């Protein structure tokens, strides 16, 4: 297991290098300059001043040199300083935004699992029943509805019409003065719609996978054997079959992380949630190169770690891989 982990961790390094290289090239080669250089702000700025600003931020050097300098600082976990007016270190700006984005996405993943697995199993066990049909319709609609639109609909229904849930931000006015549990309740009320909306596509897709995985496993020989040996039916279904049918879900878990992280831009912007996605939107609009690169790196690292976690879980769940990895 340890050799497997070390191998996978080392394998992440070239991937990360490649991702940073592409991001760096794409972002710096795009025409135009960061607004910090100033020509948009002040039409009367002289060519000399622009040159001075570019020199100050190191934008006048060749791209390869800029990348090398950036990479050298990255190794020491120094992401540089933001181009924005506050000039704060990028790492500070990001780290205060990561927890809320992670919280929403982890809750969304838990919700996907909690909904998709029972639905998938029930649909497979009662194949072609009215419930299976109904669930299939739900799956197709959940997969086709843009999540930000569902968010808008829930905002109108639960937020505006019924006035049950808040429609923006993560804290009510004056939350600092609430007790601990009141604060948690307040946070939960603010996150209910965003989490549900982030989870909907995954719920639909995963339950579909769970259903087909379960159907396949139920027809496998070892299930027939277990049945002929007289193992009770519930135990066959919910222990033996379920365990094997969950394997593909673990792989999906890893694959769906980039989508979740990317999706947080829209969700966070529309619900005014101060997370990484919203920060990225602001950074992109201001062409804050160090901040953009910082978020892309963090996003990539989170994705890679998520994939690694999925692989570890897979190896843990599937003895064939666990033992194969030792050779």
């Amino acid at each position, binding site marked *: 297991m340890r050799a497997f982990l070390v191998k996978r961790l080392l394998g992440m390094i070239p*991937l990360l290098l490649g991702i940073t290289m592409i*991001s760096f090239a*794409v972002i710096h080669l795009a025409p135009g300059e960061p607004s910090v250089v100033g020509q948009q702000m002040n039409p009367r700025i002289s060519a000399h001043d622009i040159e001075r600003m570019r020199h100050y931020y190191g934008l006048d050097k060749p791209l390869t040199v800029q990348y090398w300098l950036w990479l050298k600082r990255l190794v020491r976990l120094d992401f540089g300083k933001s181009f924005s007016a506050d000039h704060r270190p990028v790492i500070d700006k990001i780290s205060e935004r990561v927890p809320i984005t992670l919280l929403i996405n982890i809750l969304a993943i838990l919700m996907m699992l909690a909904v998709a697995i029972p639905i998938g199993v029930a649909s497979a066990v009662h194949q072609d029943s009215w419930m299976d049909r109904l669930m299939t319709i739900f799956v197709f609609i959940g997969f086709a509805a843009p999540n930000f*639109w569902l968010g808008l609909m829930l905002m109108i229904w639960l937020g505006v019409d019924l006035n049950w849930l808040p429609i923006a931000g993560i804290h009510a006015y004056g939350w600092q003065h609430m007790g601990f549990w009141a604060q948690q309740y307040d946070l939960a009320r603010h996150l209910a719609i965003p989490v549900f909306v982030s989870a909907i596509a995954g719920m639909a897709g995963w339950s579909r996978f769970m259903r087909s995985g379960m159907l396949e496993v139920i027809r496998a020989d070892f299930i027939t054997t277990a049945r002929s040996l007289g193992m009770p039916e519930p135990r066959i279904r919910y222990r033996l079959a379920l365990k094997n049918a969950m394997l593909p879900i673990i792989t999906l878990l890893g694959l769906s992380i*980039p989508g979740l992280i990317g999706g947080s831009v829209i969700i966070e912007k529309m619900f005014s949630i101060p997370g990484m996605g919203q920060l990225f939107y602001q950074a992109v609009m201001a062409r804050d190169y160090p901040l953009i690169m910082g978020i892309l790196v963090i996003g*990539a690292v989170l994705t890679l770690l998520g994939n690694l976690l999925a692989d570890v879980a897979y190896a843990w769940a599937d003895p064939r891989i666990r033992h194969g990895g030792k050779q």
Partner: protein
Amino acid sequence: MSVLAFVRRHPLMVIGGGIVGTVSLLALLAPWLAPYDPTDINVKAILLPPSWQHWCGTDILGRDVFSRMLYGARVSLAVGFVAVGIAMVIGVPLGALAGYGGKTTDSLIMRWTDMMLCFPTFFLILAVIAFLKPSIWNIMIVIGLTSWMGVSRLVRAEFLSLRQREFVLAARATGVPALRIIARHLLPNAMGPILVSAILGVAGAVLVESGLSFLGLGVQPPNPSWGNILTEGQDNIQIAWWLSLYPGLAILVTVLGYNLLGEGLRDYFDPKINGRQ
């Protein structure tokens, strides 16, 4: 086979195809079907709820939402098709090369594909679109450049299994050049899954475009797109529900249509399922 039998055997394909056909027709005929000019401002008809004059109501500038949605369909479908076209042009040859080329080529291409799959692509799309001027062409290109990975993996997998089959081995033994084997023997046999993946890809691209437009980085007002009508919907969320409801439904139905068609075609091409029924 009679029409009725076909409908009963492939209901998904027929429903999906029907939706796709209808939406495409509406988009094509938008200039003739739209009751109003989609950019015509009318200060006397601001934020009117749906009525017989304005089926889907009017927006903050008094423009007819139904007419704007008809023109929005053109944007969504154009982006979907061109983006998927670009993804295919990149993904199919890469997958073919990986699946039929040597071990080194294969592992190089697959490393590259895996890396792109780990990429938070929506972040990159967002950055590029915001840096370049937001235009429909840039959106098509960027979505295409970041969505070829699925196809290339699929084509590779198909090729890997096909290359061991007798007819391919026979062609190779008789000295047919590799390119000809790919074009004549491998690609035609992999066409079904490629087509399915392309159709599902259109659905994905429509969703990404609507998201970008919703963020204000897609089609720029006054030109209509489903995503940017939804932005106005959120701005007027307390007073005008129709601005949020209808464009979203349009996206949902369109994406649903492509997904159903794709799934239906998948079953159609799958001999296991087709034979059983």
